[in-house]
């Protein structure tokens, strides 16, 4: 400190340049945000394969529409805010894929585009960009197009008489259940197998429970998704479905059908586990998942909607900050003592 200039020239030793920074000086290289998003893309691969196998060209088109739309939406809208682009963290691609999987195969191209812009714009950018949103962006986009263009999202409640692909002529399993529970008809015996493997109708991503489970377990093992969330979701669903089974034993639609059917597994493993919109602590994540599962069952049983995943995701996203607030974990050694006097 305070050397004369001549001292500096003769006294400064040659050697490496040493930097000063705060601790910790070593960091775990295991994970970055980008790596986590890439994990989600990898985990969604089985779901993509299953949807292409069942729906063919329709699935490919939907994915090709939604993913670039989401990426461009993020690029355009982030620029409009004057902020730096962070497209390389792949979160927009994930939103695009999930949105594609939650739309029915026959949804028109413009629905995908508008849904993508709504998802990114209203679901993410408006809140401040990645990490700041309260609601899952893909679900916001889905809700937007569902409210705005209900007729275009036909597979949820209608049967297409003139479709070329045979499977599209059937109602989705959930619609069938709803109709049959009204009429009192029997449930086909091989339904469980087709729910598991995926040769049924439904939105693009919901058909194959096996694909969702494979991808979801990969995410949990990689610690990209917290296992407490799908575990809680399954428990919550089982609780309400179990109660319903006890109350109406004549219904052949068992608890297992409910777990494997519809978009529940897709929602529990991929949509609900979005870290931005889920709580921070393990206990709160369990409660978060359980409320979701119970809500899905409640919507399926007691409302005219055959599927309740989208609404349930948005609802529990809304209470996630409340769960964080109510469930602050107790430090080891107890809370900070209040000083008296």
């Amino acid at each position, binding site marked *: 400190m305070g050397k004369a200039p001549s001292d500096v020239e003769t006294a400064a030793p040659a*050697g*490496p*340049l*040493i*930097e*000063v*920074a*705060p*601790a*910790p*000086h*070593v*960091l*775990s*290289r*295991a*994970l*970055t*945000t980008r*790596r*986590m998003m890439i994990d989600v893309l990898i985990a969604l691969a089985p779901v993509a394969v299953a949807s292409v196998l069942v729906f063919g060209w329709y699935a490919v088109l939907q994915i090709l529409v939604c993913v670039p739309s989401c990426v461009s939406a993020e690029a355009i809208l982030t620029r409009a805010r004057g902020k730096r682009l*962070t497209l390389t*963290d792949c979160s927009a691609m994930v939103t695009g894929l999930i949105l594609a999987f939650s739309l029915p195969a026959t949804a028109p191209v413009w629905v995908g585009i508008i849904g993508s812009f709504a998802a990114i714009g209203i679901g993410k950018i408006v809140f401040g*960009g*990645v*990490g*700041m949103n309260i609601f899952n962006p893909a679900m916001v986009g889905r809700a937007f197009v569902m409210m705005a263009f209900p007729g275009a999202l036909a597979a949820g409640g209608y049967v297409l008489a003139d479709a070329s692909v045979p499977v599209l002529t059937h109602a989705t399993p959930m619609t069938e259940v709803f109709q049959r529970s009204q009429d009192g008809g029997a449930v086909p015996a091989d339904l469980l197998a087709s729910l598991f493997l995926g040769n049924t109708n439904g939105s693009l991503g919901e058909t194959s429970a096996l694909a969702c489970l494979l991808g979801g377990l990969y995410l949990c093992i990689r*610690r990209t998704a*917290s296992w407490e969330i799908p575990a809680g979701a399954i428990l919550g669903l089982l609780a309400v479905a179990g109660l319903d089974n006890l109350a109406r034993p004549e219904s052949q639609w068992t608890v297992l059908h409910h777990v494997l059917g519809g978009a529940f597994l897709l929602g529990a493993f991929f949509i609900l586990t979005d*870290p*931005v919109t*889920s*709580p*921070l*602590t*393990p206990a709160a*994540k369990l409660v978060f998942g359980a409320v979701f599962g119970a809500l899905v069952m409640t919507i399926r049983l007691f409302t005219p909607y055959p599927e309740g995943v989208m609404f349930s995701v948005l609802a529990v996203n809304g209470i996630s900050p409340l769960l*964080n607030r109510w469930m*602050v*974990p*107790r*430090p*080891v*050694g*107890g*809370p*900070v*003592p*209040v*000083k008296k006097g």
Partner: protein
Amino acid sequence: MNPSMGGAVGSGTFARGVHPPQRKTYSEAAATEVLPLPPEVAVPLLQHTGVPCEPLVKAKEEVSAGQMIGKADAFVSAPVHAPCRGVVQMFSVATLPNGRHVKTIPIRAAGEQLAGQALYDDVLGGDWPRSGLGRYEPGRIVEAVREGGLVGLGGAAFPTHVKLTRNESRPVDTLLVNGCECEPYLTSDYRLMLEAPAAIVCGAMLAAKACGARGIVIAVESNKADAAERLRQAASGTAVRVSVVRTKYPMGGERQVVPAVLKRRVPTGGLPLDVGVVVINVGTAAAVARAVLRAKPLTHRVVTVTGAGIANPKNLLVPIGASYRALIDCCGGLTDDAVRVVAGGPMMGFALGSLDAPVTKGTSGVTVLTTRDVTRIEETQCIRCGRCVDVCPLHLVPTRMAMASRYKDWELARRYYLSACCECGCCAYVCPAGIPLVQLMRTGKSQMPRE
């Protein structure tokens, strides 16, 4: 709360924490060498938690090795001593690695000095009895410890005599000697346990006598099994037990090692003393033995100089006040790709801004990291992934506390118990977004208004 007789009743581990690569192989096989005495040492007047010392000598005065040269009258303080014979120079100011400016007493070495093996034997070698220690009264032990200027050698540098003074309202039943050394790279405690286990055992028994503890346990991480064995042999026939605990960071923290070994939780904002435990470092225990049995003060300590950025990593016995430059030069100097010189270990150590800073009583090691060791992740938005929550050993929510500190939301910071954070670094270690969590929390703690 049941007073334990000192046996390990805990599970040997604690929840959460992280497993950074241990990197002990750089220096664990290097037997402790004596640092050649540098021409000048600068003894800081504040190298402990508490009140700084006032100088007892003046410039140009001759001092002998071990002479007390600084003292404070306050209870929570520790005197400082000259590590070598020589002449006092003009008082100076040094910047310690933690950023504090402290007054130092420089001493230019002159005259005959103890060196090499003779110095080593004087500090750590020789005979350390296992029995016959009952004749030392607690008051006498505490007095010797105070006069010797002993402070915690584990890093916090708390005056040891304060820890060992009996307090009627807070009885102590167990002395826990901390040989965990959970920081990566550091091996100074490990070498001490291998080379001078008798000194540690002897010092532990004296310290237990002073504070009134009936049970004595030495905690060692499982990656130092040979050191644990040596300690067991040295302690055979005594009441001292050795407890091997899981190798995990931050096992050496008192809020982790006390529950792991004794199954007692240290209250937030409190001390191990609140649950009847006194924790001292193995190096401090050896210094207690030296202070009581040989009436010698704390003037030297073992420091590990290690890392990929140092040419020849070593464990050195150094005089307090030697500059970091002297230590690094003794080890062959820095490599060309050295990029960070850290006082302490990589998880909690302070990066040095100048190599001319003096080694203090709390310096356990110098870790030199290269460009390959130091990871730089670009800081991005927190996506609330919760990994920091998954690893925090105190069960806090680091992301909330850090963001509250950044945006100065003190009500939120209090709700998440910001002042309970021990700054261990586990959260920042795993954060995928590269957020400087510890730095934010440290800033928040200092800026948070007192209630």
